[in-house]
């Protein structure tokens, strides 16, 4: 099921939580909504589900305008952040719920409902736990029950709000892999919300990076990581270093010196240079244009050494990674050049 979000705006008491957001979700893809807390991810997900109604704009399921449909009519599988399992029902009853509340005409017989619920229980690898109550399950198991319950209604789209948010790191990793498997096996169009970039990069076919009620960038994990379209995305996804520069004559300048990096733009004046700390090459000092700085601090992180440099009297330090056995010490002068970089106009 293709889903199209068309210039949707959502206001809570006159304050816009979503600001004219447009997004195309392709049938069968696993797409992540990624952004800091408060950026509007949950709101967008709830609008797609029909749990909130947009202040303006439309939402299409395939060719059909779903904007005015209720949540029941939209037939979506929604997995809530805190699972929202029905505490007075067993695992099996939780999973059967969606089928058992159907109107008589479309409701499968009792035995069939049970068979399908048990099948789903098997899919989420919880066979044998059907008689348990939610309180008797671990966080990871509850998450699986919530997913099975959402899948039971054969939803047109699966929506998950921070599905692994409340779990510890080990369980998160396992469930991540497992969600990918379930997605590949069932082929549902799946949208999940996360504030964890590693999770999004690892799991999703495409990422939607959001900030302050707007979509900043949409793309595959590689596109978003390698070609961030602005300072926000560059610094939000992965590690980054930045420093103020000037761009003139197709060159990047720091403190009146060209640093040997060509600029894609002719002259934009004041700008900000972004690069990844691990994506730099060291240059012999004095041999051509480069960025040179004095080591202000250094610490070892696993197999690399992260050093903070003061470049050209700039109070903001930049970080670069060196091999851990590099002899860089306090006050050592280091010259380097980013291998990949981007400059964005200041502002």
């Amino acid at each position, binding site marked *: 099921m293709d889903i199209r979000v068309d210039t949707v705006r959502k206001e809570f008491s006159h304050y816009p939580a979503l600001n004219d957001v447009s997004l195309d979700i392709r049938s069968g893809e696993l797409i992540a909504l990624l952004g800091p807390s408060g950026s509007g991810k949950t709101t967008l997900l709830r609008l797609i*589900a029909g*749990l909130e109604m947009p202040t303006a704009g439309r939402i299409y399921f395939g060719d059909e305008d779903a904007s005015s449909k*209720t*949540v*029941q009519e939209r*037939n*979506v*599988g*929604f997995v*809530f952040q*805190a699972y*929202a*399992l*029905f*505490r*007075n029902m067993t695992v099996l009853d939780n999973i059967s*719920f*969606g089928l058992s*509340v*159907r109107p008589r005409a479309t409701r499968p017989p009792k035995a069939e409902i049970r068979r399908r619920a048990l099948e789903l229980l098997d899919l989420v690898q919880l066979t044998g736990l059907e008689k348990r109550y939610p309180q008797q399950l671990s966080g990871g198991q509850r998450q699986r029950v919530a997913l099975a*319950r*959402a899948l*039971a*209604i054969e939803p047109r789209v699966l929506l998950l709000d921070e599905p692994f948010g409340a779990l510890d790191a080990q369980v998160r990793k396992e469930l991540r892999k497992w969600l990918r498997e379930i997605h590949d096996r069932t082929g549902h169009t799946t949208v999940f919300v996360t504030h964890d970039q590693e999770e999004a990069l690892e799991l999703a076919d495409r990422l939607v990076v959001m900030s302050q009620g707007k979509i900043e960038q949409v793309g595959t994990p590689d596109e978003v990581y390698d070609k961030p379209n602005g300072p926000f995305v560059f610094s939000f996804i992965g590690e980054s270093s930045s420093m103020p520069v000037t761009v003139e004559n197709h060159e990047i300048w720091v403190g009146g010196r060209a640093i040997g990096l060509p600029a894609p733009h002719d002259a934009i004046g004041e700008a900000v240079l972004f690069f990844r700390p691990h994506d730099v090459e060291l240059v012999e000092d004095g041999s051509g244009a480069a960025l040179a700085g004095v080591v202000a601090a250094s610490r070892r992180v696993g197999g690399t050494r992260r050093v903070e440099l003061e470049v050209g009297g700039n109070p903001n330090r930049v970080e670069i990674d060196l091999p851990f056995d590099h002899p860089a010490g306090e006050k050592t002068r280091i010259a380097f050049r980013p291998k990949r970089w981007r400059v964005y106009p200041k502002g």
Partner: protein
Amino acid sequence: MFEPEVVYDSRRVIPPADHARPTTERPWVRRLLIAIAIAFMALVLVLPLVLVFTEAFRKGADAYFASFSDRQSQQAIYLTLLVAAIAVPLNLVFGVAAAWCVAKYEFWGKSFLTTLIDLPFSVSPVVSGMVYVLLFGAQSALHPLLKAYNIEIIFAVPGIVLATIFVTFPFIARELIPLMQDQGNTDEEAALSLGATGWQTFARVTLPNIKWGLLYGVLLCNARAMGEFGAVSVVSGHIRGKTTTMPLDIEILYNEYNFTAAFAVASLLALLALVTLVFKTILEFRFGDELAGTRRH
């Protein structure tokens, strides 16, 4: 090395060291305070209860049971049960509806509604009764209309029911509001997203989530409905055998110096109170976490 001692175990009870106690009274001060509290409770709560039963049985069990063969007392018991049987179910519906509105929706005037729900608690029951007399009594503008259709409200059973509903309204709503607020909307949203209708969601998800709190509220509401004196006294007209409930009957018997009968009927209300107390305690003990967390009656 794996050291089992340092494994964190939430079940392990760490005895608080004496010097770490937040309160610093000496033992004898503590014991004295507890003794005063117990003595006070015995004086104002237990002693009257014991007195009710001793007075009721002063002339023996035969006289006690004979009190209930009096037709007018029987009628008072019947009317009390009838009023409770109407008022409690209605307040159950109103209370759930009001709590639902307040807890699950945001709307203009919500805090005003919350205050209004508490009004019967803050206003003297006598005043509540007076309001109904003013509304439906002989001096009111509505009176000719009621008379034309031959509807009697004041000095009749409908007035007693109305006054009782008014006075006991807050019990269920106030028990449910914090509970429902605490539980939030997500269970309901989950049910709706799975295709359930509003009624299915209410019956299969909301109601089971609040059932113990609801029962608790009903219990208190019922105890008050059967015991209400002030408001009912104003609207009843004290017509013996017609418009007297048990509390009113007790007053009449007492004023007629018929102490055995008065305390016999009173002992029934006292029993009701004891039964209510027992159920209430059981509920609090068994399902304390499924009752409203912030406030206890």
